[in-house]
């Protein structure tokens, strides 16, 4: 496991940059990870991130794209517009959640 300096904090991350300790996640860390992805977080981004975190806390697994759409009420197209070129991976990384493991 690696550590990384981000938003003035030292956090534990996987090789691909996913946080391994949810307790180290802050909104500032999220903003810094998003900046690495070239994304400036807006309210619409936060809606996705907040849903992913809440759903993960309840379900114990990362939501699928379909679940974000059906349960989170966020259109697939919007998700791709907000997090281009890999929406679930990017959103999960910014939310401090594990890398997606599902095929859909």
């Amino acid at each position, binding site marked *: 496991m690696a550590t990384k300096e981000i938003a003035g904090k030292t956090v534990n991350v996987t090789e691909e940059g996913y946080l391994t300790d949810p307790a180290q996640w802050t909104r500032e860390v999220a903003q810094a990870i998003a900046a690495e992805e070239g994304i400036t977080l807006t309210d619409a981004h936060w809606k996705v991130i907040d849903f992913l975190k809440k759903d993960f806390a309840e379900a114990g697994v990362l939501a*699928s794209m*379909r679940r974000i759409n059906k349960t989170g009420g966020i*259109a*697939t197209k919007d998700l*791709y517009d907000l997090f*281009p070129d890999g929406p679930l*991976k990017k959103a999960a990384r910014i939310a401090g959640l594990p890398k997606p493991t599902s095929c*859909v």
Partner: protein
Amino acid sequence: MADEKIKKVSIICSKGSLEGIYPALIMANGARMEGIAVNLFFTFFGMDAITKKKVKKIKVATVGNPAMGIPTLIGALPGMSAMATMMMQKKMDALDIPAIDEFIEMISGAGGKLYACKASVDMFGLKKEDFMDEVLDIITVGDFYELAAGGQIIFT
């Protein structure tokens, strides 16, 4: 050093059974999730996946499908295919794999581009209106190769 990332895939869906269609849709959706550009070209019975009247009636093949473990004569009994389809759909739903029509909407929403094959459309006597709204156009095989240029082609 890692190999160069795939930038574009063009996937051909040529089969009209449930197990024939899903691999193409899963590969297409999975590609979009990785930021890979996707063209999805439906030909022959694969067009059932985008045909309004057919998309909700797609079944698993229980005959001539040795991997199912159902003897052909039993697989041919009335209702067998419908039952196997229902069981499979239930499992897929639990895994958050959408039904085919919903999957088509999802791939389109994800920016995947969907096309029907001109030769098959002519052969089956179909029109643009017979297809789901997500289908962009009816194109020739030549058009397909033009769209696919510079990317990978997957035939299913």
